[in-house]
C-alpha cells in the first residue's frame, strides 16, 4: 500500500514538474470570431460595430460566418480567457495585456481604443485643493497593475505626495461605487461611466480627470491574438478597418452611441449621456498615441516586480496593420 502511495505521489510530482503539455494548433481558417469586451463607455466602438452588424458584414468576405461576443467585468479575466485561447480579439485596458504578455500571452496591441477617461471623485463633504489633499484620505481604485492604480501613483509621486500616506484600497468598480455611495471611502479613482454614476446620484464630485494627471495616457486598446496575426493578416486588417469605422462613427454620433451603449448594458441613458459629455477621454484608433504611456506602464510594472522582464514596444505593439490600413 505504502509503495502504491509513493508511486502515486511520484507520478503527481513528475506531472506537476512538467506542467501541462501545450499543443500548437495548426493554421486554420477562422469562421467564428470571438470578441471580448467590457461594459464601459471606453469601448463603445465595439458595441456600435456589433449592433450595426459591421463585424458580421465586413468580415464575411474573409470566411467569418459567426461573431461571438463575450462580456467581462474587468480586464484580467478577459486576458485569462485570451491566454486560454478562448478569444481572438479583445477590447481591454492597456495594463492587463502587459502582465498577460509578460506571462506568455501570444498577442499584440494593433490599435488604440481610447485615451484618458478616468476621474478622481471625492465625496461631496471632502474638500479638494490639489494632490496634497489626498494625504490621509482613503481612495478606492482598481488593484495594483491596473491603469488607474499606475496613473494615480505616478501622479502622486510627480507631485511629491508620498504614496504611503494615501490609503489606496484595491477593489472593483461596483464595490468602489458602493463604498463612496455609502460614505465609507473619501474618494474613488475610476474609469467612466462610474464617475458619472456617482455624480448623478449626488454622492460625489469629479475633482481631477486622469488626462490632467497624465496627459493622453493610454487606456483601452484592441488586442489581437498572435495566431490571427500570423495566419489571417488580411482578416486583422479588416478588423482594424471596421474598428476605425466604428470609432469615427462614435465620435460623429455620440448621442446614438450612448443609446446603443445604454440599450446593450441596461444602464440609464441620461447617465450614459452625462458620462459621454463630461469625460475627458477620446475615442481614438491610432496605436502610436498609446505607445509612450504603455511602454511607461510596462517599465513601472517591471520596477514594481509585477512582471519578470521589462516589455518593450516591440513586445506589446504591432502597428504595421494600422499603417497599412491608413496608407491604403
Amino acid at each position, binding site marked *: 500500500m505504502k509503495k502504491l502511495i509513493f508511486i502515486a505521489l511520484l507520478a503527481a*510530482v513528475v506531472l506537476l514538474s512538467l506542467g501541462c503539455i501545450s499543443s500548437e494548433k495548426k493554421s486554420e481558417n477562422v469562421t467564428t470570431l470571438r470578441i471580448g469586451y467590457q461594459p464601459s463607455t471606453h469601448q463603445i466602438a465595439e458595441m456600435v460595430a456589433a449592433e450595426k452588424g459591421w463585424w458580421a458584414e465586413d468580415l464575411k468576405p474573409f470566411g467569418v460566418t459567426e461573431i461571438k461576443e463575450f462580456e467581462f467585468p474587468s480586464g484580467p479575466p478577459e486576458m485569462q480567457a485570451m491566454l486560454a485561447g478562448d478569444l481572438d480579439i479583445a477590447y481591454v485596458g492597456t495594463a492587463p495585456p502587459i502582465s498577460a504578455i509578460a506571462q506568455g500571452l501570444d498577442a499584440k496591441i494593433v490599435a488604440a481604443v481610447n485615451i484618458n477617461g478616468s476621474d478622481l471623485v471625492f465625496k461631496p463633504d471632502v474638500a479638494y485643493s490639489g494632490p496634497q489633499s489626498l494625504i490621509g484620505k482613503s481612495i478606492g481604485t482598481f488593484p495594483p497593475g491596473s491603469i488607474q492604480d499606475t496613473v494615480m501613483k505616478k501622479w502622486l509621486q510627480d507631485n511629491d505626495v508620498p504614496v504611503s500616506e494615501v490609503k489606496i484600497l484595491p477593489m472593483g468598480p461596483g464595490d468602489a461605487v458602493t463604498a463612496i455611495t455609502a460614505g465609507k471611502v473619501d474618494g474613488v479613482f475610476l474609469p467612466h461611466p462610474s464617475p458619472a454614476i456617482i455624480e448623478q446620484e449626488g454622492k460625489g464630485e469629479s475633482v481631477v480627470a486622469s488626462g490632467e494627471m497624465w496627459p493622453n495616457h493610454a487606456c483601452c486598446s484592441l488586442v489581437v491574438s498572435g495566431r490571427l496575426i500570423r495566419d489571417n493578416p488580411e482578416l486583422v486588417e479588416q478588423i482594424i478597418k471596421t474598428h476605425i469605422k466604428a470609432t469615427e462613427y462614435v465620435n460623429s454620433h455620440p448621442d446614438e452611441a450612448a443609446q446603443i451603449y445604454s440599450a446593450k448594458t441596461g444602464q440609464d441613458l441620461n447617465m450614459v449621456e452625462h458620462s459621454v459629455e463630461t469625460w475627458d477621454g477620446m475615442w481614438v484608433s491610432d496605436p502610436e498615441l498609446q505607445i509612450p504611456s504603455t511602454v511607461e506602464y510596462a517599465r513601472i510594472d517591471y520596477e514594481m516586480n509585477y512582471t519578470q522582464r521589462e516589455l518593450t514596444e516591440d513586445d506589446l505593439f504591432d502597428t504595421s496593420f494600422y499603417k497599412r490600413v491608413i496608407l491604403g
Partner: protein
Amino acid sequence: MAVDDTLILPSFFQVLEALEQSWQTIVTDDLPISLLHFALGMGAGLLVALPVGMSMGWFRVVDRMIDPIVEIIRPIPPLAWIPFAIVWFGLTNEAAGFIVFIGAVFPILINTYVGFRSLPKVYVESAKVLGATRDADLIRYIAFPFALPSIAGGIRIAMGIAWMCLVAAEMFGVSTSGLGYKIWSYYYLHKMDYVLLYMIVLGLLGLLIDRSFRYVVEERMLKWRVGLTQ
C-alpha cells in the same frame, strides 16, 4: 492555444520558487490577516448559530418563527452580501469577517438544530425522572451533550466554507494582504505560480485547523464515543 504551459498549470518547481520568494510575506502579512478574518467570521458564526440552533431545536414555536427566515437567507451566496458588507461595516476587517460569517453560520445552525431534534424522548423523560425538570438543565445536561457530535460536524463543514468565503471576503478592498487578497492580486497579474502557491497555503491551513479541531473535539470532548462507532 495562445499560451505557454505555465499559465495552464504551473509546475511543482515554479510553485516552490514562488514559495521561496514570498514565504516571509505569507507568514508575516498574509496569514495573520486571513486568520483574523477567519476568526471574526467563525466566532460570530458560533455566537449566533449555537443559541439560535439550540432554541430552534428545543422550542417548537421558535422553530416555526425562525425556520422560514433561515431558509430564505440560507441559499443566498456569501458573494451577494458584499455590497451590504461595505455599507454596514465599511472597508474593514469586520466586513470581511461578515462575509465569512455568512458562509459559516448556516452549517453550524442546521447541524445544531438537527442534533437537538434527534434527541430520543426517552432520554428527556429519564432525566425528568431523575430530577432535571427545567429546560435549562435538560438542555445543558442532556440535549447539548447528545447534539455535540452533530454540532462538531457542523463546525467542521462551516470551517471549510469559511475558508472558501475568505477569497471573496478579501477581494473588495478591506486589506492589501491576506491569502484571499493575494490570490486575486496575483491572478490580476497572471502570475499563476503564485496563485497556485496561495491556493495550496489556504488548503494546508484549512487542513491544519481541521485536524487541530478534530483532535480537541474528537479526542477530548467526544472521547466517550470511542467504542460506539470507532
